[in-house]
């Protein structure tokens, strides 16, 4: 009885542990090493030291994919916090039809990125696309959307005939189209998380504020936002990590990260180097770079959280 008690716990965790070790731990460890080799698609690699990394740091497309990804994250993350918090605050005040609205907001989250990318690609079609039709209704000239490589700030400046320096042009309209899809897809999930966070705030706080005569507006900024900050940190961390991983929308909506590489996000670049150019070592070096960024961001956000926690 006693010996059985000692062995069996390990037998219970063994299947899960074995699979995780083989298909997660080993690949992660491998990815630390692969970048130091030159790999043919199959067969063995030859050690080349940091050559992949030095090539990477001199690679213009790599830096462009980093810039694209930073723009992407800078647009997606704030929007994925502000809109869901707004939706959730509104949802939190109603009783009837609450579940219907939750379903509407959550719907994009459960559908596949492949299917919705195809739909949005056609929404952004230059001819007969819904986006341009809607612009036409409000009297704005049709846009090239996914085919537009000009930065959006430049496009805005064009309307007043202003030429911006290149570094101020901003993400291309094509990338912004991808950003819109990504925000839309994730809104519902974050809304639900915020809704749960809001429901945790004790009602008496608001009652006290009402008695003190604070306006709903003031209550939102002085009470809700600080009290919901643990949720905000969770949403911030998760959305940042997931938006660094965007791939399917680029694969399906663009022509290999075009136009002019302006929609090439880092994970798409990893895929392209690895499985189009068949340069596994180089692709793995880029993947490791991404891993380091994500690790640093996670650590940074955890530190920040400790300081700002209410």
């Amino acid at each position, binding site marked *: 009885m006693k010996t059985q008690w000692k062995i*069996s*716990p390990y037998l*219970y965790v063994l*299947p*899960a*542990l074995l*699979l*995780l070790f*083989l*298909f*997660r731990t080993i*690949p*992660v460890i491998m*990815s630390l090493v692969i970048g130091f080799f030159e790999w043919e698609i199959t067969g063995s690699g030859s050690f080349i030291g940091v050559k992949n990394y030095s090539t990477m740091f001199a690679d213009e497309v790599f830096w462009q994919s980093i810039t694209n990804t930073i723009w992407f994250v800078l647009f997606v993350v704030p929007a994925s916090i502000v809109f869901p918090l707004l*939706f959730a605050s*509104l*949802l939190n005040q*109603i009783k009837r*039809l609450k*579940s*219907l609205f*939750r*379903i*509407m*907001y*959550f*719907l*994009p989250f*459960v*559908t*596949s*990125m*492949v*299917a*919705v990318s*195809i*739909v*949005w690609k*056609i*929404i952004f079609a230059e001819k007969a696309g819904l986006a341009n*039709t809607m612009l036409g209704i409000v009297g704005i000239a049709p846009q090239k959307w996914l085919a537009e490589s000009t930065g959006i700030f430049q496009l805005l400046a064009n309307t007043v005939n202003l030429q911006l320096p290149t570094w101020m042009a901003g993400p291309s309209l094509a990338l912004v189209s991808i950003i819109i899809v990504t925000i839309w897809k994730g809104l519902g999930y974050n809304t*639900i*998380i915020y809704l*749960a966070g809001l429901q945790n705030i004790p009602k008496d706080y608001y009652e006290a504020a009402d008695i003190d005569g604070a306006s709903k507006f003031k209550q939102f900024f002085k009470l809700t936002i600080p009290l919901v900050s643990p949720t905000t940190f*969770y*949403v911030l961390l*998760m959305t940042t990590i*997931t938006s660094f*991983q965007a791939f399917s929308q680029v*694969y399906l909506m663009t022509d290999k990260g075009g136009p002019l590489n302006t929609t090439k996000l880092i*994970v798409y670049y*990893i895929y392209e180097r690895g*499985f189009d150019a068949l340069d*596994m070592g180089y*692709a*793995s070096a880029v*993947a490791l770079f*991404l*891993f380091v960024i*994500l690790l640093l961001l996670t650590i940074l956000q955890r530190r920040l959280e400790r300081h700002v926690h209410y």
Partner: protein
Amino acid sequence: MTNTLRMSTIYFLLTIFGLFMILPFIWMISTSLMTQSEFNKNEAIFIPKEQYHVWEDGIQSKRILVVMDKGDSTVVHVLNKELKIEQEYLSIPSSQIREVIKKPSLSWDNFKKAFNKVPFGIYFANTLYVSFSSLIGVLLTSFLAAYALARMEFKGKNFIFLLFISMMMVPEPIYLISSYMLLDKLSWLDTYKALIVPWCVNVFTIFLFRQHFKSLPKELFDAAMIDGASTFGMLWRIILPLSKPIIATASVFSLIGSWNSFMWPLVMTNRPELRVLQVGLSYFNQEASTQTTLLMAASTFSIVPILILFFLAQKQIIASAAKTGMKD
């Protein structure tokens, strides 16, 4: 501001946002029911309509397609009852052409055409096979591991727990290349194994089950031990029936996850007969890129199973999604 006015503003805003969220789906479905020429002409936003001229020569009226207007006379195709061309390039007096008829018409055969254009049947079957196989794997491995983590004391438990958490944090693109090389070494590339076995473990499900086991009363386990039930027998006869709701939730999440997974199967398989639905759909997207209405039809039927699952279990899905964001 009065309360009624405030509430109506809130409902108004929620409705506007809600419509924006589902607008792409409405447009997808409506486009999937248009003919390609209706779509190209951009005349049939949201409600597909068929449009015909009618030729009335005093004896009979027939539906026609106008080919060329020559002033006094017009060149037309005459259509039969099934709206197929009966007579081509007929010149008739323009005065006999009556006004345009518009009526809603839905091209349901877009779905049939899209489904038969590429072997979507095989893609569906592959997806079902892969999804349910890995679901069984996930449930088994998670149930056992979670039980040990929640209810047993053993050396190295904390380490194992930590290992699970850290593996959950590593995103898929990081180990995609190395996994490809590993599966290559195992000669698993281009097999169902590559799609199923690595996804037979799910840390999220382990945590979900562990939380559930911890919430069950301790007396239940003690009573079973006194009864002389073996640990495994107890798990099977007592814990399993009590865990049905949580198993249902985990299953729905697992099914949605594997149904929608794309990057992994795209990379790990190459043979067309191994394509899962998402990969098949992405190839269809390349092959039929100009056939908008067929693409929309294919997108629609590819998400229908998940939508049904979502509507059946939306309460549980939304509740568990909320829980994962909560701190305990």
